[in-house]
């Protein structure tokens, strides 16, 4: 017999027959099915055959900083500049959060990210009847410019970039930020930062809304128009998959519904009369990084290629900056466990590594205690150090897009793009993302995926260490941050004092002018800015528009 044992199999089929089958017949594998956390099936092995005969390096991958940007949006990536380490923070009063900001900046954090409390996110003041018990709990309580002045006290706004996670009342809070800059003497064109301002994913997933979609999108296009003229460095929308994923979507759904939201905003901007290249470069994205390492990397790589193609081919954008999917990433809050909470540090590390290998522009790493409470200072320090260790010790920043060319990663990237585009086609058939939302289509897809995943956790076909496998008796829990009742009482007092000391007539006049403007076609931003300068509250400004715009009511789907 001819000895060709030293020669490898020339095809996958030969390898399967010659080398694999004798082993699987004898001992089998651990599982019958292998799949990602999102239940995307994963093959045993990937080879050039998985990419297909027409797979073209230049079309699919190419070079960083060049279309279609699969490898990254910048030519030098982390060799030029590390990602921005941006920990989302906010709790209690503006003064407490201001202290946390200064602490984080002192520890080497390079950007701020504000978490607002629920009443603020819903456009309600701390003295609103629905706000009872919620003031300062999930974020910082902001009622008026007076609180915003305290929040950024001693932080020069021309020297930091600030991300604000706010949506339904985003324009109002943004005007307060502009008013603080004015008071600091910082010209608006020097301001750097991001407003989440993504109302579509609120209807889909995060569920903090005020008005129905149409008037909400009008406020957004007004804000985009205003920034294009007056705050040119500001990122006007952070189109967010994060919350869609946290609500239980798969990775493909997160990618698809978020890009579909992006298409919705670009379409709305064009319909509002803005040239696409005037505003598209200031749109950015926000991804979730979950446990499944390669799935996340593939998702992020696919997102860049998809957005580039959509902007260039679908919308005819000509400015390369319009094609770039720049994004922030946050590690997956839902993946953290209350059981054996220190294990969360390890989860966050792999998720953060995926975000870095996926080419993120900024990153929030969750704190180990986030399933128990808002993060303590100790926990948030470990989370920030995790990023610093990846950046400065691991060596993964030395070369750009190191996983490119991996048969597996490229095949998975192609597959995620293909499956996400199928969803986008279905949404187009429904008439676009707004009608799709009104039909409950993305909501239903997400609810189904969330329920399936819960069943997989319960039958342990998906493993979560410490929850459905490797459980143990727990001795103690980490110390967590407590928000005292006094926060709410003090905030109510501050608000009362403000209302009795401001120029009441001026506030009324501004709110009436705003409501008038809403009835017409005037840009609402200057009117809002005038109102917040007079210390009109977020609740008052939001409520002034309700008679014109109405309130959104959700059709609940279970």
């Amino acid at each position, binding site marked *: 017999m001819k000895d060709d044992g030293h020669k490898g199999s020339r095809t996958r089929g030969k390898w399967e027959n010659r080398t694999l089958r004798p082993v699987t017949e004898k001992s089998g594998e651990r599982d019958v099915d292998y799949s990602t956390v999102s239940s995307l099936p994963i093959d045993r092995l990937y080879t050039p055959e998985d990419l297909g005969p027409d797979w073209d390096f230049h079309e699919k991958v190419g070079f960083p900083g060049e279309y279609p940007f699969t490898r990254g949006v910048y030519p030098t990536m982390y060799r030029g500049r590390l990602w921005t380490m941006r920990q989302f923070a906010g709790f209690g009063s503006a003064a407490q959060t201001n202290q946390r900001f200064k602490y984080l900046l002192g520890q080497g954090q390079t950007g701020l990210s504000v978490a607002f409390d*629920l009443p603020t996110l819903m456009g*309600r003041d701390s003295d609103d009847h*629905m706000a009872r018990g919620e003031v300062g709990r*999930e974020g910082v309580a902001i009622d008026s410019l007076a609180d915003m002045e305290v929040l950024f006290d001693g932080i020069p706004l021309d020297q930091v970039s600030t991300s604000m996670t706010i949506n339904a009342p985003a324009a109002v809070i943004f005007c307060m930020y502009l008013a603080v800059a004015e008071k600091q003497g910082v010209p608006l064109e020097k301001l750097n930062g991001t407003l989440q301002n993504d109302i579509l994913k609120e209807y889909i997933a995060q*569920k903090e809304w005020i008005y129905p979609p149409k008037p909400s999108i009008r406020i957004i296009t007004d804000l985009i128009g205003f920034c294009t003229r007056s705050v040119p460095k500001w990122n006007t929308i952070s189109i967010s998959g994060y919350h869609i994923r946290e609500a239980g979507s798969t990775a493909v759904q997160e990618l698809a519904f978020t890009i579909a939201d992006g298409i919705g905003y670009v379409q709305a901007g064009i319909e509002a009369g803005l040239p696409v290249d005037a505003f598209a470069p200031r749109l950015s994205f926000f991804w979730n990084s979950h446990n499944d390492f390669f799935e996340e990397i593939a998702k992020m790589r696919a997102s860049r290629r998809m957005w580039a193609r959509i902007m260039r081919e679908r919308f005819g954008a000509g400015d390369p900056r319009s094609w770039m999917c720049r994004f922030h990433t946050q590690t997956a809050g*839902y993946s953290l466990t*209350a059981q054996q909470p220190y294990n969360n540090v390890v989860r966050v590390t792999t998720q953060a590594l995926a975000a870095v290998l996926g080419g993120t522009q900024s990153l929030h790493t969750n704190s180990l205690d986030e399933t128990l409470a808002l993060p303590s200072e100790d926990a948030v320090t470990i989370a920030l150090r995790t990023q610093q260790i990846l950046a400065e010790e691991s060596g993964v920043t030395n070369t750009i897009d190191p996983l490119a060319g991996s048969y597996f990663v490229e095949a998975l990237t192609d597959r995620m793009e293909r499956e996400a585009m199928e969803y986008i086609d279905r949404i187009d058939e429904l008439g676009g993302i707004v009608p799709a939302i009104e039909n409950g289509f993305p909501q239903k897809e997400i609810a189904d995926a969330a329920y399936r995943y*819960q069943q997989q956790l319960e039958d342990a076909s998906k493993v979560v260490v410490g929850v459905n496998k490797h459980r143990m008796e727990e001795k103690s829990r980490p110390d967590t941050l407590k928000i005292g009742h006094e926060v709410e009482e003090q905030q109510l007092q501050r608000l009362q004092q403000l209302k009795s000391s401001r120029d009441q007539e001026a506030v009324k006049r501004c709110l009436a002018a705003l409501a008038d403007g809403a009835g017409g076609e005037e840009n609402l931003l200057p009117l809002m800015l005038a109102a917040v300068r007079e210390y009109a509250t977020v609740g008052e400004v939001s409520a002034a528009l309700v008679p014109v715009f109405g309130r959104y009511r959700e059709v609940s789907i279970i």
Partner: protein
Amino acid sequence: MSENRKLRLLVGKVGLDGHDRGAKIIARAFRDAGFEVIYTGLHQSPEMVVATAIQEDVDAVSLSILSGAHNFLFPKVIELLREQGAEDIAVFGGGIVPEEDISGLKAAGVLEIFTPGATTDAVINWVRQNIKPRNL
């Protein structure tokens, strides 16, 4: 009414909290377990939840709270049920509730609190053992 009738459960989101993943999963799991389920939808005030509970003749109210406002909202719902003479409607729930808050909530009348990692099976078994049809 027969003691063997199906349990009627209200799954409620109270306050401004928009996290409805857990509420929807538990509502679906209750339905699949054979209970009758009414889901309130989001952004309900305690008054609205209690009014729905009474109107729908439910046997228990199951609240999902991830906003940190549990120490205010659970006792408020119980107080309002009492005021309406409906204290026989049991109240239980789940969410991000620190362990040290649970005994206070139970003292205020909350029957049980399920925290992250609890399985729908565990909740359903608990309901079968602890919630009985009210005498209407």
